[in-house]
Structure formats: structure tokens, C-alpha cells
């Protein structure tokens, strides 16, 4: 008999099979993921989770007996039947074999399984890619840096921590009462001065004892030695900041804010996948702009007119103060119902063109409306849309869409971030 412990064997033996399966089912899984992410709350989207796909393309057919024909079956647990009784066939199923039908298990028309968070998001974001994605110096290569991480008892001589070593040595010497050289010197002076023979012998013995003890307790022992320890840590070189700009004036309804929120969250998920560190700045504006926290941004009401340039101005300041464009990838997403005070138009256009677009990787404008608002094709374009549209037609890298229902968010997001084939990186 032989006992083997296989628990430490490398895991994931089935990983390759699982990947093959996912590859095979890719189209189906992707569709399921897309549907799932439309239905569920976007805040749950990072959880991965169960999806179900139709078994259609994945079944493994076998020759099987069909449902027709005469069936005989033996079952346990007869309580009331006598020979010759008839049991009415169960309704609906058509196939009447009480009990036995449950064991068949062939009615499986959907195949449910769990995707890990990674797998889910991978599929979710699979065919998306940011435009002009990373600044060249901030590629996705991981930079490792070293960091001090305390002391260790082993290491290379160059990392010897002298003070720490000496401190430990001193502590040890004191604890073990190592005689100081000074004490020996004093005794030797006394010996030289002393005439009394017995006293001299005593002093000599004491000196001998002290020097022996000094030899036994070394000045520095290997156990005192400490080295500086260093640890490799990934440096957050790929960092991004995401500016959420939103008009919170009275004309923005809860529905519109909800749409905007969803869009921001998708953007956030996307950025967290791309960058090690993502910061979010919320700027809300009415006729003046302020930087707020998330809760205030989405929840607390504000009233006033609408001056878009104030938000852009605030963003410019924040970028200048805190996010140097050389170190940060800057993304901005603006949501608005499109209102802007007429006199602000020219200023907005200038800010966008001269201050915002040069430093951002990507600027998306999402015009949210009440459900069904954009069904009317003759509705005139909003003030803001008009400005941005003009800029875009002049070649500014702006992405803009109109959205009015929740289910449109995801398709719009996809469209905005569609791989841009053939477009050279800036």
C-alpha cells in the first residue's frame, strides 16, 4: 500500500479544458454577459457571477431513446396500488411516468455556470479599447521599485545596518554585564600602585577573570548583526484620473442623473482595468462649479442657472494643481441635458479647445434626456450639443452621444470605445 499526498500538486489541471470550453462557447458567453450586464445593477458588475447560456451549440449529442413507445418501469414505495389500477397521466408533460421523469434530467435547456470576476470583465470589455490609449511613457509595463521594509538577520554586506547592529550589540553587552575595558584599566592602575602582595594577587585574579569574561562575551556577536531589508513593490506608474462633470441644475431630473451615473461607473470599471490607480474627481456645476464627493455629486440637490464653462474652468484648475499631464492619464466625461446659457457658448468652446482637450486622453460628452426624448427627430439640437458638434466637425477629438433610456447606456459606451481601427495613436 502506498499513500501519496497530492494536495500540493499544482492546481488548475482542468484550467485548460475550461478555457477550451469558454473559447468554444465564446460567442454565446459573450452575448449572455452582455445581457446580464444590461439587466443587473452596474454596481454589481465587478462581481462576476453566474450566467446561463443556451446549450444549443454545446450539447454533446448521443443516440437516445425518444419519448415515444411503450415504457415499463419498476418503482419502490407502493402504498395503495393494486394490480390493474390506472394512474392518470400527469398533466402537461404528456409523457406520463410519475416520478421517473425527474430523474431524466434531459430537460436541461440552459447551461448555468459561474464566471470569475476576471473572466466576466474580460468578456465584458473584450472588444473595447480606449482611443489613443496610453501615453507612450505610461505603457502597461509594470515598473518595480524597491522600498525599505525593516531589518533582517541575513543579507548582503552592503546592506549592513550599522547603527542597528551596534545598538543590539550594546544591549546584549549590558544585559550580560560585559566588563568595560575601562574597569580593567582601573584595576591595572591599582595593581601598579599597590604594594600589598595579597592584594596584588587578588587584583591580578580579578583582572584575569574580567579579561576572560570579556573574551567570552564578544563586542559584536553574529546575533547582533542586522541588515536593511528591501522589498520590491510595484510602482503605480500607470495612473489615471477621471473627471466626472455634471450639470446639476434644476433641469436635470433623477432619471438623467441615473443615466449619467451609469455611464461614469462603466468608465470607472474600464479605467480600473487599465490602470493600477484611478482617481475620480467629481465636479458639479450650476452657474458655478465646485468639486464635491460622490454622495453630494449624485444626491444633493442644487439650483441655479447653467454655465458649463465654470465646470471646465474648475477642471483646468484641478489639473494644474494636482494632476500633471505628464504623470497622469486624464479622462473626462461630461453629462448634461444640453442647456447652457447663451452667453457662455464661446467661452466653453475656447476652454475645451485650448485647455481641456490638449491635456485629456479622452473627452466624452453624454447628453441625457427623458425617456423617449430623442425619438423626435425634428427636435433641435441643444446649445451644448451645437457647440461640441461644431468643434468635432473641426476635428477635435470629442466623443458625444445622446442617451435617454437605461438600456441605451451600454451600447453607447461600447460605441464610444469601439476599437478604432486604422487610427494612429496620437
Amino acid at each position, binding site marked *: *500500500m*502506498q*499513500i*501519496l*499526498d*497530492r*494536495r500540493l500538486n499544482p*492546481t488548475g*489541471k*482542468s484550467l*485548460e*479544458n*475550461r478555457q*477550451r*470550453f469558454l*473559447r*468554444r462557447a465564446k460567442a454565446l458567453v459573450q452575448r449572455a454577459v452582455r445581457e446580464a450586464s444590461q439587466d443587473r445593477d452596474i454596481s454589481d458588475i465587478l462581481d462576476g457571477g*453566474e450566467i446561463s447560456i443556451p446549450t444549443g451549440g*454545446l*450539447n*454533446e*449529442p*448521443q*443516440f*437516445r*431513446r*425518444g*419519448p*415515444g*413507445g*411503450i*415504457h*415499463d*418501469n*419498476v*418503482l*419502490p*414505495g*407502493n*402504498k395503495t*396500488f*393494486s*394490480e*390493474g*389500477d*390506472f*394512474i*392518470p*397521466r400527469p398533466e402537461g408533460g404528456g409523457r*406520463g*411516468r*410519475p*416520478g*421517473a421523469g*425527474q*430523474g431524466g434530467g434531459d430537460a436541461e435547456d440552459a*447551461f*448555468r*455556470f*459561474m464566471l470569475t470576476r476576471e473572466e466576466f470583465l474580460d468578456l465584458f470589455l473584450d472588444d473595447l479599447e480606449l482611443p489613443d490609449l496610453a501615453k507612450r511613457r505610461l505603457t502597461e509595463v509594470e515598473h518595480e521599485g524597491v522600498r525599505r521594509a525593516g531589518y533582517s538577520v541575513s543579507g548582503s554586506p552592503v546592506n549592513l545596518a550599522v547603527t542597528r547592529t551596534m545598538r543590539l550589540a550594546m544591549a546584549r553587552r549590558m544585559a550580560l554585564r560585559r566588563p568595560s575595558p575601562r574597569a580593567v584599566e582601573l584595576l591595572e592602575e591599582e595593581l601598579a600602585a599597590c604594594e600589598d602582595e595579597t592584594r596584588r594577587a587578588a587584583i591580578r585574579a580579578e583582572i584575569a577573570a574580567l579579561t576572560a569574561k570579556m573574551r567570552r562575551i564578544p563586542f559584536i556577536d553574529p546575533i547582533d548583526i542586522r541588515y536593511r531589508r528591501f522589498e520590491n513593490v510595484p510602482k503605480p506608474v500607470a495612473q489615471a484620473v477621471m473627471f466626472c462633470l455634471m450639470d446639476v441644475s434644476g433641469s436635470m431630473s433623477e432619471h438623467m442623473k441615473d443615466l449619467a451615473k451609469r455611464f461614469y461607473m462603466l468608465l470607472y470599471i474600464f479605467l480600473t482595468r487599465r490602470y493600477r490607480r484611478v482617481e475620480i474627481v467629481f465636479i458639479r456645476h450650476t452657474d458655478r462649479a465646485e468639486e464635491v464627493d460622490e454622495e453630494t455629486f449624485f444626491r444633493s440637490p442644487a439650483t441655479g442657472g447653467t454655465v458649463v464653462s465654470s465646470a471646465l474652468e474648475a477642471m483646468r484648475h484641478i489639473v494644474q494643481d494636482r494632476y500633471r499631464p505628464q504623470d497622469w492619464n486624464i479622462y473626462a466625461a461630461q453629462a448634461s441635458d444640453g442647456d447652457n446659457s447663451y452667453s457662455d457658448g464661446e467661452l466653453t468652446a475656447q476652454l475645451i479647445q485650448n485647455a481641456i482637450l490638449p491635456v485629456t486622453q479622452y473627452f466624452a460628452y453624454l447628453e441625457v434626456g427623458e425617456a423617449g426624448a430623442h425619438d423626435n427627430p425634428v427636435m433641435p439640437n441643444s446649445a451644448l450639443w451645437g457647440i461640441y458638434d461644431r468643434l468635432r466637425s473641426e476635428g477635435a477629438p470629442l466623443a458625444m452621444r445622446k442617451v435617454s433610456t437605461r438600456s441605451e447606456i451600454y451600447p453607447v459606451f461600447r460605441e464610444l470605445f469601439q476599437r478604432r481601427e486604422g487610427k494612429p495613436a496620437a
Partner: protein
Amino acid sequence: MTTDTMTRLYDGAEWDFATLQRIHDACEEIALSELGLDVYPTQIEVITTEQMIDAYSSIGMPLFYKHWSFGKQFTQHEALYRAGLRGLAYEIVINSSPCVCYLMGDNTATMQTLVIAHAAFGHNHFFKNNYLFRQWTDAEGILDYLTFAKNYVAHCEDRYGHGLVERTLDAAHALMAQSVDRYPGKKKLNLRQEEERERRRRNHKERSFNDLWRTVPTGPGKSVSELSIDRRRALLGLPQENILYFLEKTAPRLAPWQRELLRIVRHIAQYFYPQGQTKVMNEGTATYVHYRIMSRLHQRGAISDGNFLEFLQSHTNVIFQPAWDDPRFSGLNPYALGFAMMRDIERIVTRPEDEDRQWFPDIAGTGDAMAVLRDIWANYRDESFISQYLSPRLMREMRMFQLHDDPAETEGILVEAIQNERGYQRIRRQLARRHDVGWIDPNIEVVDVDLMGDRRLIMHHNVVSGSLLEEEDAKRVLQHLADLWGYDVLLREVDASDAILTEHICKPRCTLLAPT
């Protein structure tokens, strides 16, 4: 029986490898000396949950070629397990020599004892002694063969591409169930035996020579076309029920490596064929053996009362059989049926009643239960086992009844027989039939190939009691078959009187042909 005490094997739930060794040795002592079992050497492997799911998804084998369908299995099992819908088996045992038993690392010491008794002795004895396994499987060679298969498939993937290999395997898997030899083939004779046979035949002819036969008029001779049909079929070895074998040997357009893949799939199907036929017996044997061993260990003081109760709890879970109208019912539990029958046989052998003497004159009251059981374990499969040894008493205890569901009957489903004097024989026959692969699996065979015409492959499904093939699946399987064959395939479903009930025709898609 001796009642000498044993030292306590373990305390509490903790175990280590020394404990496993002690447990194994104690079980071995009882299994070999008291039960007289005969087993392959065992190899116990302790594994984690995830590895158990791994093993599940490659049909229990420790190594297997890569294929997406195993990934599908894995994904499915994992989902069910994570959701808490399904527990995992406590063990998996492989019919190999040495017999590999997987034990879950999370089990308690009692569970490990149970599993060792169940798998390392119960199943192991059954694998080594049952005639089906002896006839059809090669316990020594299987792991080597799987290694070969795995490497060969990987090699083919490298050389001919994943897609092509995957499609070939897909097609082969679809035909797996129809690709086993159901009867041991003729052994090829060597020269001396052939001479011997020739001599015997000549002797027979000489002895029975009668010149009168010459004068008896013969009927009209067979026409040339009939002869050629017969000859053709004989040359192709038709009719042939082992479809993959037939394709491997005769499919005109397969590349040699594809034939080898078919052969691998076919061999593996053959290896598992006995397991499907001996589910009740195999589990019954193992359950009976672990029950005996555990009881003895407890009796001799090797297991404490508390741990024995823990064992009984899992044991009764395993052999739980809900009644047909219970929401938990999902068919007859092979563990329950097998174990009940083994216990019943033990009772018949040692404490028979009049009824038993009448039904089982051969074994009733012979006294040595283990000898009788060992003989049964060696020489029966589920179908023959049930039709021989299901006793009236057990049918009464389990309250078995038989239903007859004829779609033509409008009143409902007829209760054909119940657990009484008139019903015993019928119930027993029917239950045996439900465990007969000959009845469960559709009987499909290759009957002809139109070599003179369009090389169409002609198959017959011999329909039993009017139940045709499930159409969607049948079409898909036929598609795979046509792809492998390379030309049209025609499947006829015929009833006992050779009347054609329905026909399916399928054209190949040419997706399987290797670029040459």
C-alpha cells in the same frame, strides 16, 4: 468469528498519514482474513476539493486528453458545488493496478476509514474479480494507455491543428456509446490449432458421409447479385455494431491519425463499458464490504462508539431510498438496491425461511455467506444478478411495483404488477431488464455500404417497444457520423418485423477532412 480486540485506530476527527496506514492495515486484515477478499495493491492519494472536481470532469481518470467537453463538465460541477447544490463524492476509485483511490483531504478520520473500506477493498475486489472487468479491461495497462492517448492527442493538435482534432474528437464522442464490443470476439487460431480443426472437420465428414445426399435435388442457386451482396458484407465485417471500429477500419477518407483518435475513444468507451453494466453490483459490493468492515472494527474496539455513529449517519445517507412519490425521488438508488440485495443474500444463506428455500434452493441455508457472495460478485452483472437474486421478501420490503405506460391506453398508466405472489416474477424480470444495456441502449448497427453506387452507409436501429430515437440528437450524431464517413449516411429505424418506421439521411459537411 474472533472477537479479539484491536487497538483504537484514532481519536476524534484528525488523521495523519500514520493513521491512514493503520486504518488501511486494520481494514486489510478484516478484508483478507474474515471476508476472504482478493484485491489489487492499493495506492491511496489524498487530494483537495478542486482536484476532486478535476477528477470528476475527466470521468474520474487521473490523466486524460484535453477536450472542451471536460471543461464543460468541470464548469458545471464547480457551479453546482459552489452553489451548495451538490456535495462531492467522498472518493473516486480507479480500476487499475495498483488500484488508485482518491481520498478528499477534508474528510474526517471516520470518513477516511469508510472510504478505504469502501473503495480500496470493496470496489477493488469487484474490479479484480468480476468477469466483465476481467474480460474487457486491462487494469495494468490503463494508466499507460491514457498517458499514450493524452500525448498522442496533444501531438496531433500540434501537428494538425486544434480545430481539426477537436472536430474529430467531437464526432467520435458522439458515437462513443455505440462503439463497444458487446461480445468477446473469436480468438485467432494459430497454425497448429487450425490444422487440428481441419482434421476434426475431415473426420466428421468421413464419419457422416452418405452418398445419398448427392441425389437430393438442391433448390435454385443464389443469383450473382445476392452472392456479391453477401460477399461484400462479409468482407466489410457487416453487420457491425461497433461503429467507431467500423469507421476506423473502413472509412475511406480519414487520415491515419484520425483513425488512431477513433481507436483511442473506442478503447476508452470499452474500458468503461463494464462499469455501466455493474452499477448496482459494484456499489452494492463496496457498500456491503464497508459495512462489514466498519462493523467489525467497531466490534473489536478499533473505532469508538461516537465515530461509529458518525459512520452510520453517512452510511444511511448513502443507502437512502425515497419512495416514488417522494419529492426527493430520482430513480432507484443503486447503492440502496445493491446493499439491500447483498444483505438479503447473506440472510438467505444463513437464516433462510421457507419461501427462500423455495426460490433459492441453491444457496438457501448453505451457511457460508461470503463464499456465496464472492461467487456472485465474480460471475454476474446487474441484469443477471437481479434476475437471479432479487428475493420476494426484498420486493415486499421495498414495496416495488411495475408500471406499464402504453401511449395507446387512454385511461392512464397501468399498474402492471405489485409486490405479491402474482407480481414477483414480473417485477423481477422487468427490473432486470431495466438494468440490461441491451435494452437501455438503442441497438444500432451498420448493415451495408453501397459500394457500387454512392458509397452510402446504411445503418439500422432496431426499435424496441416502439420507442424511436430522439430526433434532434439523432440528427446531430448522424451529422458527425457522416463527417467521419465522408459520404452520405442513411439511418433506418426498423421494428421487429423489418418494417421501416422512419429514415434519416445525412450528408457530410467536409469539415473533418485533413488537408492532404
